[in-house]
């Protein structure tokens, strides 16, 4: 029997509301001007910093839209903001400036603490700011076009390699995509979901998943340590039709090729990508495909993931175009590189392992607009240091406590002159003190699964719309 009990006719509600109003009123002699209230002081902070995740259908464990929803959590909210555990933001405030910095200022923390400590008063509902009108359907952007990925059955157990699948892009004409949001159906099992656009090739199949078989040992660790996360470029190709469980194997190279790098990604904790604030977009010629890279992780519960991708678009070309720099998966990407951490080998029980650094050389003047360091459960910290041609060095992002559950994008605007180099350094904690470490007794190598490690210094750039985007950066 499934029950949903309505409180529409709940007789105590009027009494309750009266009690709350009474309780929220300042006592005689108390300075009303100093009373911190929910509606006047706290709700604006929650709207600005918290509600994007703390509302129905989003990842927050409870909703923060109304006083009634928030009040039981007052002490927990106080603790979380006091410790700066929430909102999740990990950039060291001493370095860089980030447009999407959602950390609270000390005065804002003080307001929330004062509110919780003084009894978490509701205050006058007339002080309530206008509610934010969140897009329907669970979106954070309001998409102009959407694509529903086919249902993907994720088994309870086993290893899922990185897979690719191609779809026709949902645009009939040349289009500038200005923001993208990927909504995973079951976030718990989605390790990543990324895609890029590519002109359709006659050899690219639709409705088919394709991946390279990766030789692994009994612990699931890849035996193929060539720096590739998707397996060998030539070998056993496995395919599975959408809706089918039958896997077919053949020798050769994959049919679903992607020349460039992934332009958009979902990773745990990562919100949408939006280039509208910087007047930029990604050009998608008519007749393009989306080449989607899927990585699911079995967690012990068989589920069916139904993910969606939403796009905003503009027909008027924006002045800038966006270029990503991430892990190259093909041989000649326009903005590519070899993974820097191919030599990653973290010894057992090492609590402070210095990963192989990445050194990225900028071959042209460029505007860097985001950092998105990516690693797995043993990552401990990451630092980006820019070395200018004149010899100056500047730390442009420092993340002293890397949290793999929050794969954040740090948005900035950094003009980088030609000849500059970006030095990126990850550290790792393979000790028993790392609560997420599945096994500190193991050597850990580079690989695409979460029990393996990465250290990818992803960055995003803007260039003039008509600029040549070849030979942009070079990495050693």
């Amino acid at each position: 029997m499934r029950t949903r009990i309505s409180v529409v006719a709940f007789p105590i509600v009027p009494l309750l509301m009266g009690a709350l109003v009474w309780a929220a009123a300042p006592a005689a002699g108390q300075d009303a001007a100093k009373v911190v209230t929910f509606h006047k002081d706290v709700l604006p902070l929650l709207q600005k910093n918290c509600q994007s995740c703390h509302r129905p259908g989003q990842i927050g464990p409870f909703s923060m839209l109304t006083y009634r929803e928030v009040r039981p959590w007052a002490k927990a909210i106080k603790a979380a903001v006091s410790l700066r555990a929430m909102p999740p933001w990990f950039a060291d405030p001493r370095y860089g400036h980030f447009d999407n910095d959602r950390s609270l200022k000390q005065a804002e923390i003080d307001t929330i603490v004062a509110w919780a400590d003084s009894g978490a008063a509701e205050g006058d509902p007339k002080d309530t700011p206008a509610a934010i009108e969140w897009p329907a359907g669970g979106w954070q952007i309001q998409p102009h076009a959407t694509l529903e990925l086919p249902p993907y059955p994720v088994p309870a157990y086993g290893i899922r390699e990185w897979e690719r699948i191609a779809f026709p892009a949902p645009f009939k004409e040349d289009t500038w995509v200005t923001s993208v949001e990927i909504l995973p159906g079951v976030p718990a099992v989605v390790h990543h979901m990324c895609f890029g656009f590519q002109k359709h090739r006659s050899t690219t199949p639709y409705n088919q998943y394709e991946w390279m078989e990766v030789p692994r040992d009994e612990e699931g660790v890849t035996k193929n340590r060539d720096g590739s996360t998707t397996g060998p470029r030539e070998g056993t190709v496995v395919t599975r039709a959408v809706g089918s469980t039958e896997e077919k194997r053949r020798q050769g190279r994959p049919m679903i090729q992607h020349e460039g790098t992934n332009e958009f990604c979902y990773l745990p904790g990562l919100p949408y990508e939006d280039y509208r604030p910087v007047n930029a977009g990604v050009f998608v010629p008519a007749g393009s495909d989306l080449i989607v890279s899927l990585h699911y992780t079995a967690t012990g519960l068989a589920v069916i993931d139904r993910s969606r991708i939403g796009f905003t678009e503009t027909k008027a070309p924006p002045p800038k175009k966006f270029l990503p720099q991430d892990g190259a998966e093909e041989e000649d990407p326009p903005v590519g590189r070899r993974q820097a951490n191919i030599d990653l080998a973290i010894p057992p029980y090492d609590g402070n392992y210095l990963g192989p650094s990445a050194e990225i050389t900028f071959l042209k003047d460029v505007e860097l607009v985001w950092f998105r360091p990516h690693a797995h459960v043993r990552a401990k910290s990451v630092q980006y240091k820019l070395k200018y041609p004149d010899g100056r060095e500047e730390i442009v992002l420092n993340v002293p406590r890397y949290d793999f559950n929050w794969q954040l994008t740090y948005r900035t605007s950094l003009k980088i002159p030609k000849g500059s180099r970006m030095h990126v350094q990850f550290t790792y904690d393979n000790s028993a003190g790392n609560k997420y470490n599945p096994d500190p007794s193991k050597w850990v190598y580079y690989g695409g699964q979460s029990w393996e490690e990465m250290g990818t210094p992803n960055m995003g750039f803007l260039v003039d719309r008509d600029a040549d985007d070849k030979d942009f950066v070079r990495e050693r």
Partner: protein
Amino acid sequence: MKTLWLVSIAILLFAAALLAENREVSFGAADGFALKGTFYSAEKGGPGILLLHQCNADRRIYDQLATMLNTAGYNVLTFDFRGFGGSKAGEYTDFTAQRQKIMERIPGDVDSALNFLTSQPTVNNRALGVVGGSCSANQAVQASRRHPAIRTIALLSGGTDAEGEAHIKSSPKIPILGAASEEDTNAAAAVKKIVGLSTNRDSRVEMFKDAGHAASMFAKQPDLEADIVIWFRSNLPTGGYGLPPAIK
């Protein structure tokens, strides 16, 4: 005024609990006895949490906590031990008079509840948590001895026996949240002891004053339920990379 405040909040939370979608369930114990419970299904699947009630209450004492945990992404099962609430039937109708007989049956009933919980299609049977209050605190610890999938425990005003203590001491992967009220002397000491034995660095104690006993503390400490939910979110992740992959 503070009292009225707390009462108001308690009433609000009670109303919120009534909004929850849940399912009345019945499952068989090893001897065939029908145990009554309430199952709160996580919309997108996820870990499972079993709430074990104290011996002076029944499963309804967890209605609000179960709802909050469910909203936070967990499958939750509450059930009445035999002789309590909806599980009063046959030869089990009076806990006070049948205490020993019922207590002997509880471990098996807890196992049946865990079997029921993990058999639900939305429950990840590799990621479980247990809350135990007062007399059932020991049951929660003993359950974790028998079920390695129990990854974290919350204990309200209760401890465990020597075997349970040895288990906790040798289980660095199991974080424990303990809560009690200072004037509830024995319970407070038991909670402090068991958490003190834990070698997990995330284990911690919350001590209150004049808060009452076990889940009855929720009435005077309305923040405690939120703390328990946050505890589970930190130590029994619902998603992200927090759940270890199931390779085999």
